[in-house]
């Protein structure tokens, strides 16, 4: 316990407190002026909005992948299972460069998309793609063990009691998976909000359009405006914390409902 707390303090709490203290150097008015600037608001909107959208996609697509991996036996299943971890292991900058090459107008995917009039690289769509890429393992890896533990016999029982397939999914499977799905969603979201390396290459980085909040922090630092950078970082920290906390509560609530049924 003592070791846990001290280690947690050194690694996480003290740096966070440092950030917090740095932001206290700002008066509330200054804080507000920085955050209500159009550029800051747009950067926060791009980061949080696209991270949320990407986490939603990952929630759906991740669930489908998990379902296929757990419930079906097909050739290459183990390989696919291993591939899911690639975005974890890959240096984010490498992922960014690879995705940019793929989706640029001359790239393998970018060229056919460009023919259809869709531009991905150097637009917000590119940020979205990168955030989906780095987020997917979080959903898969949190939901997978739970689904594995879920006995197919429960579904069969539901079926034999007259539930349609749809009813079984909604009333039996989803409630048991809900806590894991929420956790996976929250992790994918949090990761996408803070993502820098993979996004920066594909984003285009135009102020107010495709500029992510972490880049704006870097820009403020390079202007020697540490206070601005800290203020933006604080907002990201607080919002992420609130979301993770809310998801945590939801998760407990979902868990508390299961034994009651």
């Amino acid at each position, binding site marked *: 316990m003592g070791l846990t707390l001290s280690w947690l303090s*050194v690694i996480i709490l*003290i*740096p966070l407190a*440092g950030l917090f203290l740095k932001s206290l150097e700002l008066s509330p008015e200054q804080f507000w002026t920085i955050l209500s*600037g*159009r*550029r800051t608001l747009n950067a926060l909107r791009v980061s949080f909005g696209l991270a949320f959208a990407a986490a939603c996609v990952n929630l759906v697509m991740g669930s489908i992948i998990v379902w296929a991996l757990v419930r079906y036996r097909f050739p290459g299943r183990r390989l696919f299972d291993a591939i899911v971890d690639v975005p974890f292991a890959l240096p984010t900058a490498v992922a960014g460069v690879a995705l*940019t*090459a793929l989706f*640029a*107008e*001359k*790239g393998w995917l970018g060229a056919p998309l460009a023919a259809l009039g869709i531009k991905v*690289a*150097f637009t917000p769509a590119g940020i979205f793609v990168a955030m989906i890429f780095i987020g997917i393992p979080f959903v898969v890896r949190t939901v997978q063990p739970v689904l594995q533990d879920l006995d197919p016999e429960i579904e069969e029982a539901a079926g034999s009691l007259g539930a349609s397939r749809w009813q079984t999914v909604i009333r039996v499977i989803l409630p048991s998976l809900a806590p894991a799905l929420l956790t996976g969603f929250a992790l994918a979201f949090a990761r996408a909000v803070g993502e820098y390396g993979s996004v*920066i*290459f594909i984003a*285009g*980085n*135009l*102020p*107010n359009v495709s500029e992510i909040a972490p*880049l704006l922090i*870097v*820009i403020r*630092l*390079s*202007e*020697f*405006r540490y206070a601005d950078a800290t203020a933006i970082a604080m907002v990201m920290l607080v919002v992420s914390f609130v979301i993770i906390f809310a998801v945590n509560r939801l998760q407990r609530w979902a868990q508390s409902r299961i034994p009651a049924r």
Partner: protein
Amino acid sequence: MRRIVPLAAGLIATGFLASAALAADINLLNVSYDPTRELYAEFNKAFANAYQKETGKSVEIKQSHGGSGSQARSVIDGLQADVATLALAYDIDAIANKGLTATDWQKRLPQNASPYTSTIVFLVRKGNPKAIKDWDDLIKPGVAVITPNPKTSGGARWNYLAAWGFAQKKYGSADKAKDFIGKLYQQVPVLDTGARGATVTFVERGVGDVLLAWENEAFLALKEFGREKFEIVAPPESILAEPPVAIVDKVADKKGTRNAADAYLQYWYTKEGQEIAAHNFYRPRDSEIAKKHENAFAKVQLFTIDDVFGGWTKAQKEHFADGGTFDQIYKN
């Protein structure tokens, strides 16, 4: 945290230094900007040889490359650089303002402490399909311009000021120059964080019709990717880019490397140093070497930042500081 990190970093660094010390008598760290990788790879080797011949001491130079502004910040935040060779004087001024080097650093070496110069040119696709010849061709409809973000890239500031200088002269006022710059940046689909990143976007990703680039970076792109794909267009008029070099006094004195660091920078002003600058596509300062290589570089009318903008500090404040003209383009 504050205490623990430097301690850990110190321990690791001491380990490295101890092992490196076995290899060389003197170790120098040169903190530089992105497009000088190839230049310093060659220069360091030549200097180490010359220094050993003259003093009998071996010297090893380590390089650090990155965006000019962020490199300056690393030095300010404690990176132990003996010399800083950055993209613009403002970045070394920032180091000097923190007391790490003398504020008159630019007077300590000849020619504004810029031993080699460059300018800003256009790199276009083969055959120049959009017929770009001069700065005002850049704002023609349908021309996509690639240039990095002046907030994070020193090279991008030279690009910006070159365009501004042209427009101010041609259209006669700062207001009209601002209009021109506004239109120009509306044609920019990607703002990379550094000069090298912008080159990659243009050359490898195939984005844009024209890359605003350091002349040396444009030549390097031709050399790497072939003259059959790209060509350089030199505008009739552009800016004289003077990337400066300086000793970081505090670090050099602490490490006892001042003599070597001084010799290192002075070596730029020798015939050998100037020759290395020239065949890495930097314009040499030495008139004799410049004469020898004059056909390699386009004849461009060059204006200086002092003439047009009244020096870096003023230019920085008006154009790139918070709320400056660049921010106004994107309405901060």
